[in-house]
């Protein structure tokens, strides 16, 4: 992995961490109507304000392609109450999930893991929809959940025992060199 690839992974992680906390603050629990009601009024899919309407067209297209949802997801409709926030958050989403050294599947896997760590049901559902768009079914979702289980468990042990880092991490010169990080304990 290159330094740029590492930065892309961290960018997805921090972006989803922030989104998930915001969704918690807004009371978003599910894209379906089965969850509790959001704590803010959601803008209509066909928003009247031009700056919002333009973003909603892009978001609906993206959601259809990447999540398999044919509507503007509730999160974006909620934050549309603050159009500058909507614009900045959407532009950042396009950037961090856009083309780079890390493939789209890996970015959605990271996003799903980070939404689960942040404890937000809404974005777990959102990014799990994106993850499944790569053709994965329950077995692979559980495979990913098992990895979250493993890493979160070992993080807890390492933190509790105050274990020191086993060494410097080295990065590949180019993306073609593959995942050339140090050997990690399992």
């Amino acid at each position: 992995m290159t330094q740029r690839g590492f930065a892309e992974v961290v960018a997805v992680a921090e972006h989803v961490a922030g989104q998930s906390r915001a969704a918690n603050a807004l009371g978003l629990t599910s894209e379906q109507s089965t969850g509790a009601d959001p704590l803010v009024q959601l803008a209509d899919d066909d928003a009247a304000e031009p700056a919002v309407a333009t973003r909603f067209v892009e978001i609906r297209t993206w959601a259809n392609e990447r999540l398999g949802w044919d509507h503007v997801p509730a999160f974006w409709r909620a934050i549309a109450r603050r159009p500058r926030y909507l614009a900045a958050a959407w532009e950042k989403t396009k950037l961090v999930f856009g083309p780079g050294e890390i493939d789209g599947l890996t970015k959605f896997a990271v996003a799903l893991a980070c939404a689960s760590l942040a404890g937000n049901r809404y974005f777990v559902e959102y990014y799990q929809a994106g993850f499944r768009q790569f053709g994965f079914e329950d077995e692979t979702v559980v495979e990913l959940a098992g990895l979250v289980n493993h890493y979160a468990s070992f993080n807890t042990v390492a933190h509790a025992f105050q274990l020191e880092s086993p060494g410097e991490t080295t990065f590949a010169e180019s993306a073609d060199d593959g995942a050339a990080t140090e050997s990690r304990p399992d």
Partner: protein
Amino acid sequence: MTTLPLPDPHDTTGRTREALELAARRGGLPLENVSAIHRAMSHWPEWLEANLAQTAATFKGQGQLSALTRECLHIAISASNNCRF
């Protein structure tokens, strides 16, 4: 400094030694190089054994996610959990 001293694998006996030897074999390492996290867990060998079994079924298990995706999950989850290790 660690919270508890990490046992030297060569000084251990009985079930602790067996669990550390299993961790070393699973990692393809000589006993003296078994990882700090496994040495930490060896304070309760049954716990280390349970985690080795879970690791075999998750991290080391067969699946559809690539090594790169798994490594990226490792980075993102460890960063989210403020884990320097």
